[in-house]
């Protein structure tokens, strides 16, 4: 839109202000990772690299990050497969109960985590008699991650229309070949975006995880929760958070680039 210069300035100013608001608390985290005082007080009573040194040798944190990556990757993979299948079904076919299915996908994210958490906990333990473990977390996470993939793919399919697939069939390609050579390449960036969001959701999930993780399973949020109770561990948590923020920019940046190329 052609906005007056003032309007642009005001908007840019607001954006700057909001970004400041977003990053100020994160700065607190960064600063606290150097704070000599372990209780995150402001202003810091002194600066130290102690926590970074301690974090570097903290195998618990590293294991927890690995567990989280493992859980998030598995959950994302399942969500990618199920979400894609479902959106293909809903977008390319008209059938009775479509709306119900649509609602069903949204429900796990729309209902509060604690509801999902206790429901799944009860189902796994009470009904199925399963031992909680890594897999139960993956199943739970995948369930509420489906929707992010589903919506991204759905939107992409809607925009694509069916004509590319028809063109492929027209040239002699069967359904599977068409999916492999035409549909999937078109969906790639949508899958990436949906997958990234799913990964983020799973990676930082704590409530559902609390209820579905087995005894040996310590995802990062759980590790953080536990360590906030421990003496002299809180600053290490800050260090881990800072490292995560730094690392996270890479996949987001890559995703953005891929998306931008299209």
């Amino acid at each position, binding site marked *: 839109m052609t906005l007056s210069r003032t309007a642009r300035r005001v908007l840019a100013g607001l954006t700057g202000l909001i970004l400041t608001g977003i990053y100020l608390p994160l700065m607190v985290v960064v600063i606290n990772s150097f704070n000599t005082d372990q209780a995150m007080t402001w202003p810091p009573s002194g600066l130290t690299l102690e926590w970074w040194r301690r974090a570097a040798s903290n195998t618990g944190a590293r294991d927890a990050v690995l567990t989280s990556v493992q859980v998030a990757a598995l959950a994302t993979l399942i969500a990618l497969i199920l979400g894609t299948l479902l959106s293909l079904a809903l977008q390319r076919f008209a059938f009775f109960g479509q709306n119900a299915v649509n609602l069903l996908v949204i429900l796990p994210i729309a209902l509060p985590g604690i509801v999902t958490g206790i429901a799944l906990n009860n189902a796994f333990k009470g009904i199925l008699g399963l031992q909680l473990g890594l897999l139960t977390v993956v199943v739970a996470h995948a369930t509420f991650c489906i929707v992010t993939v589903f919506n991204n793919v759905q939107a992409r399919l809607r925009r694509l229309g069916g004509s590319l697939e028809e063109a492929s069939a027209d040239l002699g390609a069967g359904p599977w070949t068409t999916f492999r050579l035409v549909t999937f390449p078109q969906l790639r960036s949508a899958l990436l975006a949906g997958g990234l969001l799913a990964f983020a959701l799973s990676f930082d999930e704590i409530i559902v995880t609390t209820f579905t993780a087995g005894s040996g399973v310590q995802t990062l949020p759980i590790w953080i929760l536990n360590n906030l109770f421990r003496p002299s*561990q809180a600053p290490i948590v800050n260090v881990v958070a800072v490292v995560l923020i730094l690392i996270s920019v890479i996949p987001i940046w890559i995703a953005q680039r891929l998306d931008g190329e299209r």
Partner: protein
Amino acid sequence: ACGGGSDSAETSQAVEELGEKEGQVSILAWPGYVEDGTNDPEVDWVTPFEEQTGCQVTSKTYGTSDEALNLAKTGEYDVVAASGDLSLRLIASKEAAAVNTDLVPNYAEVFDFLKNTEWNTVDGVNYGIPHGYGANLLQYNTDVVTEAPTSWSAVFEESELAKYQGKVTAYDSPIYIADAALYLMKHDPDSGITNPYALDQEQLDAAVQLLKTQRKYVGEYWSDYLKLISASETGDTVVGTTWQVIVNSIGKDNIRAVLPEEGSTAWNDTWMLSAQAENPNCGYAWLDYIVSPKANAQATEYFGEAPNSEAACAETTDPKHCETYHAGDEEFSKSLWYWRTPIKECLDGRDVECTDYAQWTAAWTEIKG
């Protein structure tokens, strides 16, 4: 399996002798009780155990006793560290196995006043080995609370509370009702309370009333101690319940703690063996190891509580640790009311129906509103 409010458990039979070690053991405990060096390479008493016994340890921590009950019921854990408000419930729900203390050589060292207490022994059957113990103290900030308080009235009397509007704290758990009951017991003889864990409906109502009044002045409740540490340091909290370890880790002159004249509620944790334990022999090995002076000293010092034996006191890195935490001080210990689970049958032997933990839980959510 409908226990239907029955309080006494059938006595279970403890094993007579130990068998082959299974090579693994899984433990459910408070954070800081089972440290294997992954969080801090300096803090590690699990690895020596594994080396000595060949039992590999997996562990899970919990945040509240109630959460632990849930976890224990899964049967995934061989050993559970239970506070007094949990141990009886484990026994009643038959989750705990009787423990043959003869098979735990280090048990002999433990302070006598911790042995065979009502939260680790039922009908003469011992269900566990005492770990460390500690009291819920009264903490205050000398900058604001200029006159050192000597009584819990600092957090229960409106006239006192009014001075610290919004800067009062209290422990966030139904069991905290006992603190109010203890205060009533001492200051309001008419209430007829003789044991803060044995309250009939009327007495519970009185305690709740007291806590509701207190709530108006409470800034926040705490259940994890980082929260209290930060609030104390920033001055968001100036008076309220605390643990010695919190005061110690703040390490500032203006934050002090006292044991008020009324005495206090306290905890004494018990290492218990699960009735469903798949690795009982490694479990026994752990029980014996964790009450051994060296390990007990490490664990209790790390957590910030009193060790369970004189021998352990000798092993602490801080020579004044036992002094700070009043370890072995029987007088101190006598003024404490250790946590235990309120049940329908009054613990003080009265012939009325007492309120049980479910009612306390409901009351607690009611108080917080």
